[in-house]
């Protein structure tokens, strides 16, 4: 790796355009809404720049706090489920014979590139009152009914009432897990794949069983991948807009939906901005902590 000062011209040419773009069309917009989060909403929906914390205070009012808590809660449950479902998959692929690794990864990641809207819609097809699950159950109900009629016991089961599987918090969790699973599997796989197998073999050799090896050796050594994956999934789940919008019920409003509402219907942009930042501050803090820790580790390693 070269020092940038040795080759200032190529460095500027290569870094310049992208940096400019991301500065103007990402960093500045973020700064703008940060400024707006301290602003005030005028009577006709305009925004007045001010220096008030009113919006943040409003954000932690009980009604809004409740939504925030729900988002955190649903985000947390989704992350946990993603971990439980995704860990074995990442493990299996990481320990698969080499020629299967890439195909397996491909299979897992491919759905991720389908439109999120479509993937969410697909669950409506599966779980709707006239969806696959209910149709299947209805068919079984009909078959059972027919069987009972043959044995002289008609109408024992009554009419089939389809299960209301959609439009509640559970559906939202399922949808979030479905959409974010690759985000957990990929970093975890990357970490597990690089793990030196001899650590696991050494643990077995010294007398530990498979489960013990998993908890005492595999999990601690894979922790960076686990943490990265979980944080990613948690942030994305918590701030997701589409899944609660399409699959959730009236009480499944999450913070993403609230932000959208403030911007579209209520036209209260400062408040919406403040809400956005309530989600973004933790992200920034987490990244900052990570960066500091990485720098500290590097310095410690350089000293030994």
């Amino acid at each position, binding site marked *: 790796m070269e020092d940038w000062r040795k080759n200032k011209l190529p460095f500027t040419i290569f870094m310049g355009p992208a940096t400019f773009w991301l500065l103007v069309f990402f960093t500045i917009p973020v700064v703008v809404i940060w400024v707006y989060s301290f602003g005030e909403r005028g009577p006709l929906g305009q925004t007045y720049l001010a220096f008030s914390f009113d919006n943040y205070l409003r954000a932690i009012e009980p009604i809004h706090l409740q939504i925030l808590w729900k988002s955190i809660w649903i985000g947390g449950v989704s992350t946990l489920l993603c971990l439980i479902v995704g860990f074995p998959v990442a493990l299996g692929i990481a320990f698969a014979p080499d020629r299967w690794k890439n195909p397996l990864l491909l299979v897992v990641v491919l759905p991720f590139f389908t439109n999120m809207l479509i993937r969410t819609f697909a669950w409506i097809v599966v779980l709707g009152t006239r969806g696959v699950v209910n149709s299947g159950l209805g068919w079984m109900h009909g078959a059972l009914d027919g069987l009972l009629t043959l044995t002289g016991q008609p109408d024992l089961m009554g009419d089939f009432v389809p299960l209301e599987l959609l439009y509640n918090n559970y559906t939202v969790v399922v949808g979030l897990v479905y959409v974010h699973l690759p985000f957990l599997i990929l970093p975890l796989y990357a970490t597990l794949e690089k793990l030196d197998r*001899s650590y696991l*073999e050494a643990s077995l050799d010294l007398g530990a069983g498979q489960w013990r090896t998993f908890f005492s050796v595999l999990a601690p050594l894979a922790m960076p991948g686990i943490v990265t994956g979980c944080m990613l999934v948690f942030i994305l789940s918590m701030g997701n807009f589409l899944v609660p919008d399409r699959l959730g019920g009236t009480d499944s409003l999450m913070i993403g939906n609230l932000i959208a509402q403030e911007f579209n219907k209520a036209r209260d942009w400062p408040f919406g901005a403040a809400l956005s930042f309530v989600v973004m501050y933790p992200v920034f803090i987490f990244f900052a902590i990570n960066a500091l820790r990485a720098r500290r580790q590097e310095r410690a390693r350089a000293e030994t």
Partner: protein
Amino acid sequence: MTDAKPIISIRNVTKNFGRVTAVDNVSIDVMPGEFFALLGPSGCGKTTLLRMLAGFETVSEGDIEIDGQPMLGVSPNKRPVNMVFQSYAVFPHMTVFDNVAYGLKVTGVPKNEITGQVEEALALVHLEDYGRRKPDQLSGGQRQRVALARALVKKPKVLLLDEPLSALDAKLREAMRLELVRLQHSVGITFVIVTHDQDEALSMADRAAVMDRGVVRQIAPPGELYEHPNSLFVADFIGKVNMMEAKVAGQSGGDLLVEVKGMGRLAVPYAGAATGDIGVAVRPEKTVLSAEKPGEGVIALKGKVSDVAYYGSESNIMLDTETGVQFISTVQNDARDSGLSVAIGDDLWISWAPGNTLVLAE
């Protein structure tokens, strides 16, 4: 000791990876208390064999018994052997103490006993004050000693070591060589090491098995492997050797008569019988160089010096000879000044006693 039962009994073991046969019908008995080496070039199957002993590879055919118990279906954590891995595999997220204690902890040894045993093991490898350190604060050699302590604290019947000296620098390698032998004698258990370095095997082992492409060529103590190799492969793999093509011409008394290309007929002492094409060889250090043609009773050959390689304590002199084979003669530099001053282009005679000739089949 002579009628003792082997502690490891490998019987007709074969290992296949798909269509590749890594280990082919190998049978070896390792005796209790031995320092045994599996020696061979890379790809010969020695590491696979070691891993089968440890339980990390399954056996395709054949049986392995350790201390009289069949090991079929026995998982690694239940075997009475422990392994020191080539990369040492010292757990980076635990202290030295916790590393060494790990094997005791997971098998349910009570806490108060663990401390004592761990300290004993650390003392054995001279790491008494290192308990609190983390692996990334240790050098390679120190990490290896942690791996040793960790394995030995479990008092296994057999200790397996995978290329133990390959990651160390030359000076450390020397020191560790002696250290390992001393350790083995003081602890008294059987050691099995895998190595591709014949110096290591010769200097450390009581007996070694030389392997080639999945097959065991010879099992013998180092001296026998060196002076009485049973095949071209073993003779060439261990040490240097000057090889000549020959045809058996007959027998006379205790001698084998051979026609050697470019040398005519020679009489070589040989106990067995042989016919057809064979190899005839002599070790470089068994040869003597002289300016004058040597007298009777030795096998002699004339050659022109083509190269001199100086190694400090000895020199290898390369001669182009009439047989077409380039001979190497190893000469000790046993006097500081003068001694043999040999220059490229010199005409010299190389000779050796007939009894030092090796007769080798494929």
